[in-house]
């Protein structure tokens, strides 16, 4: 029997739907506005004539951007940092998490503390900056003069992600591991054939965290990469924003689109990859636990 909603429940339902819809629209609005403004005409953008829908549609801001070498260059730099960075982070985190998940590891408590302490206490940005400067000199001494590699290797390792992986590996029943060892699997085989497939969903989650933090990385890339031609997309966007908020630069702009349109076009282009992988991230929000294997 379906019971009738009470009046208080009905009121709460109505409030929930209304406020959620308003909040969701507020969250999305800046992005929608960015898309509209990117393809609207100069006058419409500068005089706030667009609220949501584009007006005097032009695609020259996008064309200008697509024609620019700098844009594609920064895009490819971001791809470089994201791909190599994610692979490196994942490599370190999976191996470290696997080793830490083993009860037989000597000094296991110490190593765990070694990781967790970095979550309690971080040196701060100035000491970190000094440290990057110092390590980049060490890198140069080793013959690696490309700052990109320092950013790839040094950045984006979060202790939290390693601990996530460790906990997930710990959840694998030891019977499965023992069975694999009895069958003659080596340590690497146990990891690659048993643990990685069984912890797929955690690994996917961690991969996405790594990839997004790499794609979005700005501050340290800007500080560490001395060559302007190697800067990633986020730095490029920020530079353009700083450039066009300068009114003297604005006056030199010709063409029938506003400077804002160009920045909005850049923003739209930089979030497209995230929008593409976004549905896949969604899937891993509620991490499914891996059922199956040995039942006790």
């Amino acid at each position: 029997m379906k019971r009738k909603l009470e009046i208080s429940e009905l009121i709460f339902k109505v409030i929930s739907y209304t406020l959620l819809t308003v909040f969701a629209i507020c969250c999305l609005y800046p992005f929608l506005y960015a898309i509209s403004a990117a393809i609207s005409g100069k006058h419409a953008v500068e005089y706030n004539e667009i609220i949501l829908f584009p007006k005097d549609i032009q695609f020259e801001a996008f064309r200008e951007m697509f024609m620019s070498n700098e844009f594609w260059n920064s895009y490819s730099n971001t791809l470089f940092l994201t791909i190599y960075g994610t692979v490196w982070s994942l490599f370190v985190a999976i191996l470290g998490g696997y080793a830490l998940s083993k009860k037989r590891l000597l000094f296991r408590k110490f190593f765990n503390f070694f990781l967790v302490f970095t979550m309690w206490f971080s040196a701060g940005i100035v000491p970190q900056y000094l440290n990057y400067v110092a390590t980049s000199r060490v890198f140069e001494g080793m013959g690696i003069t490309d700052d990109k590699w320092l950013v790839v290797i040094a950045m984006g390792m979060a202790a939290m992600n390693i601990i996530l992986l460790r906990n997930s590996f710990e959840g694998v029943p030891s019977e499965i591991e023992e069975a694999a060892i009895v069958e003659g699997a080596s340590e690497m085989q146990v990891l690659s054939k048993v643990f990685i497939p069984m912890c797929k969903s955690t690994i996917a989650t961690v991969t996405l965290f790594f990839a997004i933090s790499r794609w979005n990385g700005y501050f340290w890339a800007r500080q560490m990469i001395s060559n302007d031609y190697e800067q990633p997309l986020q730095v490029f966007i920020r530079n353009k924003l700083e450039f066009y908020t300068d009114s003297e630069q604005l006056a030199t702009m010709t063409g029938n689109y506003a400077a804002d349109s160009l920045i909005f076009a850049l923003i739209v282009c930089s979030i497209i990859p995230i929008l593409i992988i976004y549905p896949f991230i969604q899937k891993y929000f509620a991490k499914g636990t891996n059922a199956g294997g040995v039942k006790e």
Partner: protein
Amino acid sequence: MTARASDFLIYDKVAGVYRANPEQVVRDDVEKHYWRHVGQTILKDWRLYLMLVPTILVFLFWRYLPMYELLGSFKVDDTVKSVSEQYFKGFSNFKGLLAGSGTYAEYSMNFWRAMRNTFLLSFYGLLFGFPIPIILALFFNEVKSDLTRSALQVCTYLPKFMSTVIMTSLVMMLIKQGSAASETPPGIIAQLLSNIGLISKETAQNGLLNNPSYFRAIYQISGIWETAGYDSIVFFAAIIAISPTSYEAAQIDGANKWAQMRYVVLPSILSTIVIMLITRIGHMLSIGYEKVLLLSEQHPSAWQTAEVISTFSWRIKATSQGLASAAEMMNNVVGMLLVIGANTIARKASDVSLY
């Protein structure tokens, strides 16, 4: 346990002499060869230890060595030499920052301003940013259609995955100042706010980010936009874990919506709320420097309310590295005490340790 002579020596009745206790011989042996045993275990299992090497190296070089650089706060303020070549100077950098006099006066003033801003930004973040995800989660629970709810969740989680540069660029574009020369109006949100009378026309025209009294509001509102939806996930998970029979029982007893909230939902998610609250308090002092820097870099007039400890030390790092390190050291030590304290309370209060 106290040691007895028989632990070490046993009287051999047949030969009539004392002999070493064989168990103790083994114990001595283990103790004497402890490090050899460690070495053998590591050698036997070397693959496992090799796997740890990259993690250890990365954390050692880029997490622990910066802590060594923090020692610069105790040393001579000399930006040319590296920390290891400097002389120990004592606590003068700390004293200068805390009770500045003479040459330190300006630094000290700015330091206290930054300290105050750091506390206030985190405190307001706690006050406004913390309850909103809980309320959102309660609302999400009311939406019974999966499709509608997923659609709403997709929209509200989205900003979390955008970079700080994108988020701050959007904020800056939407509330940018108008131009007097070309008579262009301010950004669309600034104009909207002035149209509905929340702010005056001149304030909007001059740019909200140039006005120190609006920085905190901008920071908090953009923070809610960025994280509230995503933060609601954990509360929503706690709410949907409540068994439907609890609601039914309450309804049969005649509980209206408020009574259900009060006596069914709240007790069930209280432990989650406590844990999240304690985590937030623990991380109070780690204000995201990136966002503050990006928002206020071009607007020096807003630094009065925008400058936090990390941006303060970032700005003075070129002229006085020692002071910059000292400021960060104090901020981070207090931050660590907060984290450890919060963790201890969490463990006592709910048997759940965060770390």
